[in-house]
């Protein structure tokens, strides 16, 4: 891997989101397209050095270009930020070396960020695959050798899964995602298949986040073979304007999906279930139901989903409803809910005893993973931090 450790580059620290060209100019592009720069923000933060251990929660963070970073808390303390210069979205950790994190730019995104939490001054950025832009999510292969990310071909709009060498971050392969607008993806427990949420929404960087195909959108949940890139299974929901956007996978292969309804393209106001499960062996997605007033509170929008393997509960968050809802993944029954302002980040504690929620006000809340009772004594607020949509957990051995 080619990388640089560049500290104290205040003069070149980006004040706004950088274009690909600016990035290359700043760093001097390598043959692999890898670029890196130090961060005044990162350098100014508290710095756990080598040997850091414990439970780490990490998330894209920041309200504007001067704040955008990948940030993490170790054992709920010591916020560390690694400035990115771009707004991140999803992130992933190497399952073999969990200290190695990758963050992906929010759509339409051009960069990813690589960081080692034990040495946060060493950060790297990498670019979207040639002719592509990123959708914001990615994951590692089971052996940690490959990084998969959801991207789209700029001109055709065809959804892609881009495979990078996790050491060099060089693009090794690209295959179709099975649809338009791939967003979240995850590795299945068999280590051979990826499950991809193809949101169905066609966008083009020239028009930002504007959806260009609301009338014809088709959202799918696609299973892809990571070796051949071939689709092995595809599922859809009965609601054509429900964009499958986020997902999580239980150890038994149950997949929980969260959707975002494109209400402006619909001709009715009827409530549509926003969450669904795909259980192993089933040929259909099971919609998760609940009382109408509660479902209405999600405001047609679920932003994040996480399964707690220990309790069999899946949590879904809605910043537009200021609400998190929880369903049993075995029975499909609603288990509870929790109101929390602008909540979107959602993860499971390393011991799987708590759901951890974050919001854009820099707040963290923790719920008992079985009773869904909040441990209010564990409430935290990190002034100046603004957690973005997704929160993740790793545990580093001592």
């Amino acid at each position, binding site marked *: 891997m080619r990388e640089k450790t560049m500290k104290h580059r205040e003069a070149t620290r980006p004040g706004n989101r950088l274009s690909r060209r600016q990035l290359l100019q700043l760093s001097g592009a390598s043959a692999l397209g890898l670029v890196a720069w130090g961060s005044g923000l990162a350098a100014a933060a508290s710095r756990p050095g080598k040997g850091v251990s414990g439970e780490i929660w990490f998330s894209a963070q920041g309200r504007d270009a001067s704040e955008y970073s990948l940030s993490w808390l170790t054992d709920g303390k010591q916020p560390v930020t690694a400035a990115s210069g771009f707004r991140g979205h999803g992130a992933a950790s190497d399952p073999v070396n969990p200290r190695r994190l990758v963050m992906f730019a929010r*759509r339409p995104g051009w960069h990813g960020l690589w960081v080692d939490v034990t040495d946060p001054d060493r950060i790297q950025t990498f670019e979207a695959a040639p002719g592509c832009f990123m959708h914001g999510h990615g994951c590692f292969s089971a052996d940690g050798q490959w990084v998969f990310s959801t991207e789209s071909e700029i001109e055709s709009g065809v959804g892609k899964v881009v495979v990078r060498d996790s050491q060099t971050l060089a693009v090794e392969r690209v295959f179709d995602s099975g649809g338009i607008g791939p967003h979240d993806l995850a590795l299945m427990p068999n280590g051979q298949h990826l499950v991809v949420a193809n949101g169905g929404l066609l966008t083009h960087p020239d028009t930002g986040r504007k959806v260009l195909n609301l009338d014809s959108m088709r959202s799918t949940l696609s299973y892809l073979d990571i070796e051949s890139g071939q689709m092995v299974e595809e599922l859809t929901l009965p609601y054509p304007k429900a964009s499958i956007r986020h997902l999580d996978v239980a150890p038994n292969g149950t997949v929980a999906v969260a959707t975002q309804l494109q209400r402006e393209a619909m001709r009715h106001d009827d409530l549509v279930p926003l969450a669904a499960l795909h259980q192993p062996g089933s040929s259909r997605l099971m919609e998760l139901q609940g009382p109408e007033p509660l479902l209405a509170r999600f405001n047609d929008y679920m932003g994040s989903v996480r399964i707690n393997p220990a309790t069999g509960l899946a949590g879904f968050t809605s910043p537009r409803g200021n609400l998190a809802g929880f369903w049993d993944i075995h029975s499909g029954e609603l288990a509870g809910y929790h*109101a929390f302002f602008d909540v979107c980040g959602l993860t499971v504690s390393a011991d799987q005893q708590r759901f951890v929620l974050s919001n854009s006000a820099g707040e963290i809340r923790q719920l008992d993973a079985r009773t869904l009772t909040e441990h209010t004594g564990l409430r935290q607020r990190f002034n100046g931090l603004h957690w973005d949509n997704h929160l993740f957990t790793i545990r580093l051995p001592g």
Partner: protein
Amino acid sequence: MRDNTATTLYWPGWKQSASIGVLALTLAACGGTRENDEAVLSQGSLDLAIQQLTDATIVAGADRMATEVETLNSHITSFCNAPDAAGLSQLQGQWRTLAAAWQQLLPYNFGPLNDDLVFPPYQYIDSYRPRGRDYTETVRTEIDGWLDSDDTLNTEYFASRTFNRVGLLALEITLFETAADQGTDATAVLGEFSSQSRKCELLAGLGGALALRTDSVRDGWSATYQDTGTSYREQFLSGELDDGSTPLVTLLTSVQSYLDYLQQRDVVSNVAQISASDSFDSWTLMTSAIDSIEGLLAGTSEEQVSLFELMTAGGNSTAVATVQANLQQARDAIDSRDATSFNAAAATLDGNFKRDIPDSLDVSLGINFSDGD
């Protein structure tokens, strides 16, 4: 460590448990009156403005709503003792007054009005609000059944009915049309009340059940909220909101949600249809709503520090002018009875509450809320 409000729920076959921790509350010292006329955009002035608008618009609105229901029930008692045309006219007039009071309170659909995610109180007052569904036929069918049944039609009976059987719509149908053939001629309606004592029982029961809701909302705002020993007003103004939101964000998103509802559900074309007359219709209700929202922004008295003043003090007089123009556009649409223009104005105002107003007051509604992915 202590446990907070637990809401664990099993569906179907509900078992809902909620334990509510006692909140330690302090009322923010905001000052009583403005000491000079020069508003400055600061946290202190914003707190004062929120306190004043809360008292002048929301607490007063909840109080008015409860008072109007009390008046309605008083009229029901008088009317049912001796049904006559004057009594019916008075009752119908009071229902219209009540409906207008409701539209003045509904933009502030949080706190006591909306404190249960599954059974929110507001929907028992206005069944149209949750999803814009017209339950008129449902209520008509239910009324036929109630009139034919042996059930005791009292407050307790209707307090336990589902939300889409009770509230303003059920009262409107009972008061303004005959159960027999949905005729709206006052003489025929009066005749039915005179000939069927159960219709008066029905009316009294519906009125009593509505009073339970509106009294609870008023008490929640002014006296004690959910057995905490303090009012929601105090909790709201001190920023002790359990979902972690701030008072101004809660307020702005609530009004924004109401404006979204007005246009998405085409409210002006769907509510108060049976009670419409030469001097009252759904446009009357929209005037009440716009009055309330304008009062929220501009203040209702000269003593108030208004949000408009603070926006101006923050250097955002252009945004104030924009919002004022959009309020006027809504009023023009009301004057011309133009639903399309009114809904467009509501959508524009919705955008103002999402962007212009919070930006001008330097308030963030939340990055995930506003532009999540």
